[in-house]
């Protein structure tokens, strides 16, 4: 194992997050993990059917029983892949026999019913511990990590059953009706094919869940060790030490070799008594471990390999024990699933209640209708648009506008001339122009809108008027007005006089003729 090649972010997490990391690991290496799983499980599935010919109902039970062995394949892959070493097929097959043989009996008998199995298996399989050392180690490792691991087992068992049922339901949904097959026939285990089908479903459900179960348990184990042994810090310190000791490469080698030792299973990082909290440490275990330790160090020191000798020098008594208090909720007992009792009585109370509710509902409906109606009535526009369409405020419409609704005064020409002579040329021309528009609107029916500009009015007049003289006059007037109003260039006096004089000719109705 090379801790510096670890492919996951190491940091102390809470237990649920650790199982999530397991799911993430599975998602990262689905191919190798599932290949390893099926490489072992599929032949076994077939083999069991052959062995139990005629008693196929036994197969799911046997499969279930053999799960601890099957689990070893995904754990093997994950354990290597996490440290940057995804095992290839050949190595997997080469190491498989050892993998399966190691403590197989224990795994299939008394440890089969360990509810925190997924959490404990890495200790056996990856660290290779056995016997009292293993127990001791599990106890140290396990206390706060055990609870979530048990929950993990419970939830995964439910997930597996749920997925089995889901698969059956899916098949039922997908089988068209005209296939003359009642779906419960499929569940009829008296039929051999029904049994085979059930076994296959169970196998699929197991295959979906079991690698996840293994990965989550492995992640729980990793997380626990990160808590207890500060792997993240170790990683950082190694890097720092390597940087500091660039002149002494041996230190790096020692560091990595230490990691290797940890991986091959010697408890270089072990668990020792915390005297304050753990007085009941049995003497023989300590003795045994010390002995084991001394032998190991001696072996290393005698070795010809310089790396191992260096390792022996650095190894020290590595016992480790930490205690974390974690509070959690625990079900005391599960309440019964509610059974709904059929209502029995129709007493007076019930009748009154029902009538009351009904009236209340009628009332609510009426109220709702009334509110909606009121809303529509008060703001009738609601039905026509989300907000009342206050498109434009009134002032914007009327600013600077004289509505040309009334006919112009008959003496406008004279009035304009008077303004001109009084030194107000702009006012004079405004009067003339406004008067003309009023005349066009009232006498010739030109729909002059307030928003029309001078050119708009002119275009309108050109389109609607058939009196060429009037049009010519209006065009001339418009030009003069534009120059006066916007360029402040009033016409000369003769021009103004001519306009004033000509105006009545076009816009004053001769007396006696009807408008």
């Amino acid at each position, binding site marked *: 194992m090379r801790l510096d090649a670890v492919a996951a*972010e190491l940091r102390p997490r809470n237990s649920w997050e650790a199982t999530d990391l397991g799911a993430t690991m599975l998602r990262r290496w689905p191919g190798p993990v599932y290949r390893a799983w099926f490489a072992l499980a599929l032949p076994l599935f077939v083999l069991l059917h052959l062995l139990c010919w005629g008693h196929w109902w036994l197969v799911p039970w046997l499969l279930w029983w053999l799960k601890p062995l099957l689990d070893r394949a995904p754990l093997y892959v994950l354990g290597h892949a996490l440290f940057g070493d995804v095992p290839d097929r050949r190595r997997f097959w080469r190491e498989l026999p050892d993998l399966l043989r190691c403590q197989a009996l224990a795994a299939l008998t008394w440890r089969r019913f360990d509810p925190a199995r997924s959490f404990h298996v890495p200790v056996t399989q990856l660290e290779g511990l056995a016997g009292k050392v293993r127990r001791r180690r599990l106890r140290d490792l396990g206390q706060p990590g055990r609870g979530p691991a048990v929950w993990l087992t419970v939830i995964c068992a439910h997930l597996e059953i749920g997925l089995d*049922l889901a698969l059956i339901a899916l098949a039922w949904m997908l089988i068209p009706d005209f296939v003359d097959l009642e779906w419960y026939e499929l569940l009829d285990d008296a039929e051999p094919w029904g049994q085979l089908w059930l076994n296959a479903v169970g196998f699929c459900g197991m295959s979906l869940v079991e690698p996840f179960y293994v990965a989550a348990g492995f992640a729980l184990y990793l997380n626990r060790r990160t808590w207890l042994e500060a792997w993240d810090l170790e990683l950082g310190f190694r890097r720092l030490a390597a940087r500091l000791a660039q002149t002494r490469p041996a230190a790096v080698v020692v560091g990595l070799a230490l990691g290797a030792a940890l991986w091959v299973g010697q408890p270089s990082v072990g668990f020792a008594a915390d005297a304050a909290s753990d007085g009941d440490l049995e003497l023989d275990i300590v003795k045994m471990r010390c002995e084991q330790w001394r032998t190991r160090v001696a072996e290393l020191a005698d070795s010809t390999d310089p790396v191992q000798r260096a390792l022996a020098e650095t190894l*020290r008594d590595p016992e480790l024990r930490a205690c974390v208090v974690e509070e959690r909720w625990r079900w005391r007992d599960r309440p019964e699933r509610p059974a709904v009792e059929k*209502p029995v009585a129709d007493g007076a109370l019930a009748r009154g209640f029902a009538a009351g509710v009904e009236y209340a509902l009628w009332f609510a409906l009426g109220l709702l209708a009334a509110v909606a109606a009121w809303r529509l009535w008060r703001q009738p526009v609601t039905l026509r648009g989300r907000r009342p369409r206050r498109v434009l405020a009134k002032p914007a419409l009327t600013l600077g506008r004289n509505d040309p609704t009334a006919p112009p005064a008959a003496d406008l020409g004279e009035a304009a001339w008077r303004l001109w002579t009084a030194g107000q040329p702009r006012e004079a021309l405004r009067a003339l122009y406004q008067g003309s528009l009023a005349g066009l609107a009232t006498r010739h029916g030109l729909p002059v809108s307030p928003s029309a500009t001078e050119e708009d009015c002119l275009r309108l007049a050109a389109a609607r008027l058939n009196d060429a003289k009037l049009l010519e006059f209006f065009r001339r007037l418009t030009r003069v007005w534009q120059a006066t109003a916007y360029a402040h260039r009033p016409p000369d006096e003769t021009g103004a006089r001519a306009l004033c004089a000509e105006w009545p000719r076009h816009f004053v109705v001769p007396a006696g003729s009807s408008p």
Partner: protein
Amino acid sequence: MPNPALLDTVRHVETPEGITLKLRVAGPMARALAWGMDSLIRYGALWGLSMGLVLLGWAGLGVWLITLFLLEWFYPVVFEIYADGATPGKKALGLQVVLANGAPVDWPAALIRNLLRAVDFLPAFYGFGVVALLVSRDFQRLGDLAAGTLVIYRDPPAKPLALPPGPALPPPLPLSAAEQQELIAFAERGSVLNPERQEELAALLADCTSGLRGVAAVERLRAHARWLVGERT
């Protein structure tokens, strides 16, 4: 900064203020447990209600059915909107539903993710939901995908860890920011790691501790950490 190549369950969300918030996305285990608790609460409530409603006869059945309907579809919605994105079960497990950008769920999102529960439940017992949860990047079931929501861990604010009191010493050589962070973390986690393990870790840094061994080395590193966080004695 976190190495993106490393496996992790954290999702980074950039806020309009230009900072990155870390959301720790919650996976199947915690969510399944929360769902189990919620189911117990729901069916417990229905059971309790049926005890009372029995007195009302058929009318009671009507009320009971309406309650069943409301609990079935809107129990999570109401809690997610009005109780910080967490049903009681989620709250017990420290979970929270948020939008993918870290904002609290709004009505449409809460409705979508809970109406689509009906599909996640298919073909039976959350078959689609579980598969989607395991396959999708951020542990989202179909309802979460459609609503754009995440379920995250919402921890109680972490208590600041105090360093054990003592002298402060400058480190004998310049350290990078990451290395400083690790030294400080080492001192802060003194209460979690056992002494032997600490000594072992300290031994890795013999160059920093000028060859001290054992407890003395640990103490020296702590002193450096105190100096690094800015404590002066």
